[in-house]
């Protein structure tokens, strides 16, 4: 049994310590908002926060996570009113939506480090893949979220 603290709640997870956090979240904890895209930390669809840091959960074994604070897309805000979520809504960013939990979680952590990012900052830091190609709106939404968070 491994105890995972996810979105402020403790979960006893009966899985092997080498199980990636992604699969523990989806299959044991039952939170399916975190998505499987590649399994090799390439695409970012599985991005969650571990102690506030954006991490690609497909490549983080749960054995290392006892005592860590894990936040998934479901725990980002109680009412989907986080400024990044609001910016996503306002710019109508998602298409298929599969990558967007990861895009949002990556952006939330990024804006904490870079509250007023340039386009070059965004290019260097938000590297998640969106196969639908929502980048035009995604970029606008990141800037909009930065403005909302400042306000």
């Amino acid at each position, binding site marked *: 049994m491994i105890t995972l603290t996810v979105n402020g709640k403790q979960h006893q997870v009966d899985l092997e310590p080498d199980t990636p956090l992604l699969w523990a979240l989806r*299959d044991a904890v039952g939170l*399916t908002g975190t998505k499987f895209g590649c399994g090799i930390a390439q695409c970012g669809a599985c991005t969650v926060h571990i102690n506030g840091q954006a991490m690609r959960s497909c490549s983080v074994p749960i054995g290392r996570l006892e005592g860590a604070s894990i936040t998934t897309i479901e725990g980002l805000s109680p009412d989907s009113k986080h400024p990044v979520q609001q910016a996503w809504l306002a710019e109508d960013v998602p298409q298929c939506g599969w990558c967007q939990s990861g895009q949002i979680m990556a952006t939330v952590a990024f804006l904490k480090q870079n509250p007023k990012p340039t386009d070059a900052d965004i290019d260097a830091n938000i590297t998640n893949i969106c196969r639908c190609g929502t980048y*035009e709106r995604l970029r606008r939404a990141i800037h909009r979220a930065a403005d909302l968070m400042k306000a």
Partner: protein
Amino acid sequence: MDGNQTSVLTRRNFLVTGVTAAGGFIIGISALPHLAHAVTVAAQPWNDGEGHNPHEIDAWIAIDPDDSVLIRYQRSEMGQGSMTALPMLINEELQADWSKVKIEFASANRNLREKKVYGNMYSNGSRSIKESQKLVQQVGASARARLIQAAATKWGVPASECSSANSVITHTPSGRTIRYGEVAADAAKIKLDKEPAIKPPSQWTFAGKPMPRLDVVHKINGAAKFGMDAQVPGMVFAAILQCPVPGGKLKSVDESVVAGMPGNPKVVKLDNAVAVVADGTWWRARQALAKLQPEWDVGAAGSTDSAQFFREYHAALDTGKVVTGRKQGDVGKALAGGGKTFEAVYETPYLSHSPMEPMNATVKIDGERIDVWVGTQDALDETEKVAEHFKIEAENIYLHNAYCGGGFGRRDGADEVIQAVTIAKAVQKPVKLIWSREEDTRHDWMRPMAVVRFKAATGTDGMPTALQARTVTGSVVLNALHKLPPNGLDFVSIQGLATNGYAIPNMLIESVLKDTHMPVWWWRAPGQNQNVFAIEGFIDEIAAANKIDPYEMRRKLLAGKPDWLAVLDAAAKNSDWGKPLPKGKGRGIAICTDTDSLCAQVAEVTVSPKGEVKVDRVTAALDTRYQVNPLTIAEQVEGGIIFGLSAALYGKIEIKNGAAVQGNFDTYRMVRLAQAPKIDVHLLASGGEKWGGAGEPATPPIAGAVANAIFAATGKRIRKLPIMDNDLSFTV
């Protein structure tokens, strides 16, 4: 204002404008109205109860006594937005209070049981709207007429004296009103003598304006349920390894190696694959699967590779069976006529669709009944494919369609569903089958490879007098539909070549089919996505050699076609075409017609002396003839360009020893934010007989526009994709 279209784009303020069929402007938006999100689609779009609602007026529409309206949407939602647009069209006629509308997927099972009351259910070929706009408008108009008739009967007045708006029916002479919810039960019993007429787009008051997509609220908080998110009590998880060489068979596998591994793994042998099921998590199934060392019977295909295929395709240009796709004038005579002649060969590789959500299906079998949870682009067709495969009644299959995590043409083959059913039968438990990314890439049913040879002649004015194109390519039609039309022509193979709009007096477009063992399938803008790159590159070659501006040459070749010219001009004029750029920067233009729409694009690129390419900016114009939701059309243009750009810059699946080499995003590279150009979209709606599609037409032009821009920047002509395989370095 520029002609009949305009648009303004800044980084923060996006204004979509277009012209309606009636000539009125669609008003743009800078911040999307949040009010619109009051309308709800379900986070779980399918209905497990198979859809019978006690307050139904018909299979499409239910209205509760409290006026809430349920609209059933008969197609799929993979991000293209028609789950928003088609209900908008229903409501254009129904005139319900939009804030009280809920939308769910129509049931494929019910469709089968009720004489296909929903018609076909596909979302492919950019047809979701163009092929059901009349049907859904009629659905809305009929329901409204029955509601009005029910009110009129209740009041004892002629229906002609009544009207309705915003879910309220008014008897005009007396001013009496009644709500939809109060007469819905009576309306359900009414049969109309005559179906009411539907509104032409010029009379729309609701559809045609930008509407934020309704599914987005569930896609910012993890709530949206995709196929992979289905949870069925008692289910086990399955991972699969398919024979690396498509067409090969499983010979043997030592199952003992998984004994004692976590999750009680069990090996299931399929004809052409081996699967492992495990309890608790898919990860255990994948770990156990990784221990297996299956032996495959791969046959002769196991020694093939891409280089060999390309050699064979080149040879087939002269030795293959040629079928004519389009013919006018006498190309042979014109080519031999003494003018300047041109010849070039263009190559494009296999490509995987690679939707972000890898293929998966969840299956529960209970006696005769099979429940399937899957995100599919065609719930009805997949149901029928599964029934056919297992020789069972389709009515016993209950396919619960989920949101698709991307489709692009891949999600309608039912191969993953058939595997999941096979595995569930073997282990006698509900099963969730998930393909790894590597399986998804390598066992994609690919965009075919192609080799296209062009010949042309030009007259004394430098303009083409003859154009011949002969493609050698795999047959999507044979792979997907199993037979060719009576004329023997694979109509996909010549899409983009034969559909060119150019006035060239002598033209011959020909197709040679040559399949390998790799299955090929519909990829976003089939045929077009590779042929437009080829023909638009070749036209550019002719223009350059004859020192004619490539935009001006296209203008001349499209003279007399105002719709083509409007799209071409919109892209060119908004792109600063003609404004000088320094060495290493260039602009390129390309145009096509696809799914009855027209799309032109100008790409602006920077190429470094080392040969690194950055696409800085794309100016796109799309004419869909009509617009239901201009916002989603613009989004499809943006997304379609990125999809085509990944293919243009990086996309290739190579074959070695009969197997796909690239398996994951580290080797099958995608455009990310850092490579994404600024995209400026201009929408037009020229009207006419046919409606155009939106999902695909923006994908074909981008590769040609970028390749032509690279030529303008460097003088280097790209005849082979992906662009990254070309040496573009130059001396400053």
